[in-house]
């Protein structure tokens, strides 16, 4: 769905001329393609960001997959199934784009399962209620879209192209979430309470998805220079808040932030302080569901081993018979 936690990859000694020519291509809005020369640090930064993005799509299936068998109607079940299938597809598009940088799929899987590679902090929150499916689609996919639309113009061709596909599909995800929230918000008192409760739990974690505040984000400048990143974390977060508040008001739901108010002068909403300690803890692996999520991935990986083995033996047999 999207990634966070970029770090600077410090490159070694590379010829000044090549580096300059590379930056010039970027400045001219040329796309970089897999076999083109690129600084090692650019390659590393992309591998980190893209693999974490792919991991987020894959792990992101878990909080929702939980509700497929519990969806309230057949219609909702079919929609949720399609959405979760999309997340798997998004993960595969980005894995395939990341492999063009020279890292294998197996190595990326290893890094996810060992905890070396991160994924979006948002997926470490539990989804105890059906309304959470609404809040995730509306807020989490909504925040992801804010992040991903600029990535469609990222300087690395395969990444940008996979983002174009993903953004097209993601828009259905957000709308189906808002649709769930709309039905609940206009339903019985108990249903409206469910919707409000889900908003209360997912609002702040959704704001954290944009990553640390610009003043604490040490790695943004290089990514901006390389045009991997186009807007700062704080700018995107503000854009998300400005777009989402009226949507909540429309449903008669209350954003759980007592400091939230329209600032006429700025032309934006002012909002309260984000609990960055919570964000850091979740990133570190101490969120409510970090252990369950990784355990579920590990279990799926282990239980799929015989399938991978069978496929390999089948491939071998096919070659032998040729």
């Amino acid at each position: 769905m999207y990634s966070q936690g970029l770090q600077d990859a410090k490159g070694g000694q590379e010829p000044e001329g090549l580096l300059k020519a590379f930056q010039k291509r970027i400045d001219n809005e040329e796309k970089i393609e897999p076999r083109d020369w690129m600084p090692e640090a650019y390659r590393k930064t992309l591998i980190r960001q893209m693999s974490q993005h792919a991991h987020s799509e894959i792990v992101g299936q878990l909080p929702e997959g939980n509700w497929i068998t519990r969806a309230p109607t057949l219609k909702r079940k079919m929609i949720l199934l399609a959405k979760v299938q999309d997340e798997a597809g998004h993960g595969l598009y980005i894995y395939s784009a990341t492999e063009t940088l020279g890292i294998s799929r197996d190595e990326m899987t290893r890094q996810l399962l060992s905890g070396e590679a991160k994924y979006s902090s948002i997926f470490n929150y539990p989804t105890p209620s059906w309304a959470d499916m609404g809040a995730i689609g509306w807020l989490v996919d909504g925040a992801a879209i804010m992040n991903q639309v600029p990535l469609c113009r990222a300087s690395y061709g395969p990444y940008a192209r996979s983002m174009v596909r993903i953004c097209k599909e993601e828009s259905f995800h957000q709308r189906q979430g808002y649709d769930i929230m709309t039905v609940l918000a206009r339903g019985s008192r108990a249903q409206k309470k469910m919707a409000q409760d889900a908003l209360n739990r997912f609002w702040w974690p959704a704001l954290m998805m944009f990553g640390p505040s610009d003043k604490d984000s040490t790695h943004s400048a290089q990514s901006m220079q390389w045009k991997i990143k186009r807007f700062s974390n704080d700018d995107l977060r503000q854009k998300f808040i400005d777009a989402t508040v009226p949507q909540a008001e429309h449903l008669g739901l209350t954003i759980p932030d007592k400091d939230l108010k329209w600032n006429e002068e700025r032309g934006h909403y002012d909002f309260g302080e984000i609990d960055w300690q919570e964000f850091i803890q979740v990133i570190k692996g101490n969120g409510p569901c970090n252990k369950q999520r990784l355990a579920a991935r590990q279990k799926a990986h282990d239980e799929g081993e015989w399938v991978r083995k069978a496929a390999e033996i089948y491939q071998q047999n096919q070659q032998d018979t040729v």
Partner: protein
Amino acid sequence: MKLYEIFIRAKSGLNHRHVGSLHAADPQMALQNARDVYTRREEGVSIWVVEAAAITASNPEQSEAWFDPAADKIYRHPTFYPLDEEVDNM
């Protein structure tokens, strides 16, 4: 498993176009996976799968030597030839 590059024809009349890659044990599995991964929303009417190892590509480091010579052959374009106003379009 092997890496396959996937090409999709969006509708008849158009070329197959590269959309991405995936891993599969054989071409049949690659086709089935490509159907699920790349055509969930009617993006195609035909799929080609090609083992990535079977593709020979030009070298980007030689792209100047390969492609620049075309730049100074402007006489290959119709606009190189001025026409009298009376003739106008041709």
